[in-house]
């Protein structure tokens, strides 16, 4: 007589156990689909840097970086910033794969406008000149739409006494070389940023790999905006609300800040740069009897590999 001592248990191999718990691994078909999706978005071609992306509305947009560079070289040249124009003309725009992916991702979130900047060092070298040439009289604008003037002399933005005191600090990204700034071509700050403290916005942007603007970036931004909206009723940006300039601070205050304000006078508003009690700099325009709210403009910085 013999007894059997074989185990009656069934063995479920580890492979099946993990499939039950974690789901089956991606199949070849899944991988092919993922690859196909990746390929649908065009990668930049060598020496002809064009990026295809989708806009927020789901339409295809092309960012042609040669063209972007040409436009900005021309912008600086037209504003008598020859050395900056020359410096930027000499660069070769090259983007890493990560940068290209980020542009595509942000494009679908509504970021649609590139601004090309020289290194911070060069910006600071031409600080006063940039302030002057981006706020001088624009013949295309009506008299009352020009910036602040005193006795017929253009004064540019109106700086509050607080802003004038002390050195401006540039915070956020280190910008050793030239860089592209991707922002939204919109007249007013996004509603989602309104009535929020600057510190919170800095944090919020950071979490989305975004950043605010510096004092000098705002000068360039607003002039570029005005030039492209000359025929509109309100050619200047930020006529309804104010913009925290999150990446600039007043040294005397020692906190992140914005610089604020320019100022011009148009027939119905005045542009101001000012600073809040915490040292936060901002820009706003004054219109009588209108409540001003502060928000911020988000941007993404793409440092250019040289």
């Amino acid at each position: 007589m013999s007894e059997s001592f074989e185990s009656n248990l069934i063995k479920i191999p580890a492979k099946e156990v993990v499939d039950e718990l974690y789901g089956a691994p991606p199949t070849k078909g899944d991988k092919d689909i993922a690859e196909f999706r990746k390929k649908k978005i065009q990668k930049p071609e060598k020496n002809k840097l064009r990026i295809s992306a989708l806009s927020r509305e789901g339409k295809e947009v092309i960012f042609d970086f040669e063209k972007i560079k040409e436009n900005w070289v021309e912008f600086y040249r037209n504003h008598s910033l020859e050395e900056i124009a020359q410096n930027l003309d000499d660069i070769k725009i090259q983007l890493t794969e990560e940068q290209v992916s980020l542009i595509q991702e942000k494009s679908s979130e509504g970021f649609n406008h590139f601004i090309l900047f020289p290194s911070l060092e060069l910006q600071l070298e031409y600080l006063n000149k940039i302030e002057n040439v981006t706020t001088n009289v624009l013949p295309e604008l009506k008299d009352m739409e020009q910036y602040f003037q005193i006795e017929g002399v253009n004064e540019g933005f109106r700086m509050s006494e607080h802003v004038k005191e002390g050195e401006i600090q540039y915070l956020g990204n280190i910008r050793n070389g030239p860089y592209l700034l991707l922002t939204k071509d919109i007249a007013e700050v996004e509603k989602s940023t309104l009535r929020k403290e600057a510190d919170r916005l800095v944090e919020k942007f950071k979490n989305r790999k975004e950043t605010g603007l510096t004092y000098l970036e705002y000068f360039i931004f607003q002039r570029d905006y005005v030039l492209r909206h000359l025929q509109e009723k309100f050619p200047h940006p930020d006529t309804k609300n104010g913009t925290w300039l999150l990446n600039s601070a007043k040294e005397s205050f020692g906190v992140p800040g914005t610089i604020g304000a320019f100022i011009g006078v148009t027939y119905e508003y005045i542009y101001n740069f000012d600073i809040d009690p915490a040292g936060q700099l901002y820009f706003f325009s004054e219109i009588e009897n209108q409540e001003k709210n502060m928000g911020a403009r988000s941007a993404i910085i793409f440092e250019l590999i040289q």
Partner: protein
Amino acid sequence: MFKKFKLMPGEISQRMVEKIKPEEKIEQKKLAKGEIEQGANDLAELILERRDLEEQIRSDNQILNKKDDKPVSVKKLEKKENSFFPDDLLAALNDPEALSKLNWSGISRQVLPDQGIKSSCRAAEERLQEIKQKIAELAGQEKIAEVYREKMEEKMATFQLAINIDGFKKVIENVNLSEAKLLAHRNDENIKQSKADEEIIKKYTLIKTKAQERIEELKSDPDVYRESNRREMVKYRRQYLKGKIVETPSVKEQESQILGHLQLGIPVFLRGHLGAGKTEIAMHIAWKYYGVEPEFISGSEEGSKYDMFTKMQIGIKPKEDRIKEFDERMAEIKQLELSFEDIEKIKKEYYKEIIVEGKVTSFSQYGPLVRAMKEGKPLIIDEMDGIPHSILMRLNHILTRRVGNKFKIQENGSEEIEIKKGFCVIATGNIKSAKYKREDLDAAFLSRWWSSEVKYLPEEETYKILIASLIDKRGDLELERKEDLADIKKLTQAATYIQGVFTGEKYDDKLEGGNAARGVSASLEKSVLSMRDLWNIVKPWKAAGFCQPLEKYILTEFIKKATVPGDAIRLAQIFCQYRFFSDWKAEDFGISGLTQAKIESHQPTKQKTI
């Protein structure tokens, strides 16, 4: 700069084959392709079995060689030479003459406690020899050995990639900790973050993104994906077997949040329902990140503040205190203008009186709170809401103290102690509810804590942990029936539901005590199915070889342990809803108050259809 794998898959597989090849060349057979493939698969299976047997033999021998641990009676028995092994016993039991001729009383004394292990070890040794022989035969065939090598090379490559996934995960974890420490340090010193700090944090973010991308990339290979997940399951199993907390993603997330606050010097208060794992997570943090056994105050047991700070003792002081006292007294004597001889005489007397004999005296001993501060250890205040308010107020001052600060203990003659690095406070307490008789914690007191709720684990994590407690070291799972797996899943789902009813998050007016007309949900008063309870159900189930249905253990190990009768009825009803006890009648449960109607209304198969 970076560490590399010492051996690449090709080299490892080559070495593996060389190890199993017989020393002498054997005759090469003509083998068909299918036979070579089968031979290589058999070889892989045999090698795994060989490893298991070797491990068993090693472990058995360790136990059998520990003679000193055994009681004397067992030792005596072992001296008898003619002890019976299972085969001898079976032969005797099958012998028709055994009833009358054999002395079973004598035989019974020769069935020794170690025989089970000895017999198994002997059988394993025999099987090992057999297997070694078979391995040599198969590995001696060049073609089989080569196919096996190729298979192993592929497997090793998968292992290495899966190991790298673990590595990338660890990189992310360590970068998070490193970042938290940097921020904590800046905060501690009240220094503004520099540009260099920002740059480092930016780089850390990039490292984490890239490491995550690499993980996804590696996981796109099905073999690596499965191997990585298998490793995770095996890791969970190891943590479970060691009695440690199982570090699932949600636990890790909680850990890093708690640690982030502790590093900033903020005390942490963990709130949660019964069995959610508050104390376990607090202890785990102390062990894992501080590397010490924490000091522990139990709110329900240690009600006096004197227990927390110092304890008065009557008796002879500990030796080190006696030596200290002796030194102090001698120092005083030396101040006096006494002759050398007098000093020596007094010294001898003091030595005898203080050190050798010791005086019976009252003295104070540091309590856990003071010990934690002095020795730089975490302090866990378990069930803080069980401590009277007046005593907790005394803690208020301590909560604002930082490392390096000094603190005076009133109970000990205002002795001043310095808080050492490593001191931190974690408290636990129940969610405010009528279920727990607890003190209401003062809002001002609570504002000093970072408070976080420890929730029951998500269902999918509970399921993974439960399965991990059942798999073997390779990740394979042995069950009586394939349907058992579905039962474990149902058990996990029922656990989540029970937790929901217990916390009040789930509304169920159909259970015992609920009232649909008045919109009143039933509630579990004292019973909740926690992770610990789940283990208590499946552990005996596994130990019994899964031969009984899981529901039997659900009833005996959990439902019947409910201290509130209504809870037992409600639990039985919930399990019926999850298709356990489908054919059971009310009397089968043995729960007082449970009627047939109360059960049938929850058994899906018995419910009337309209």
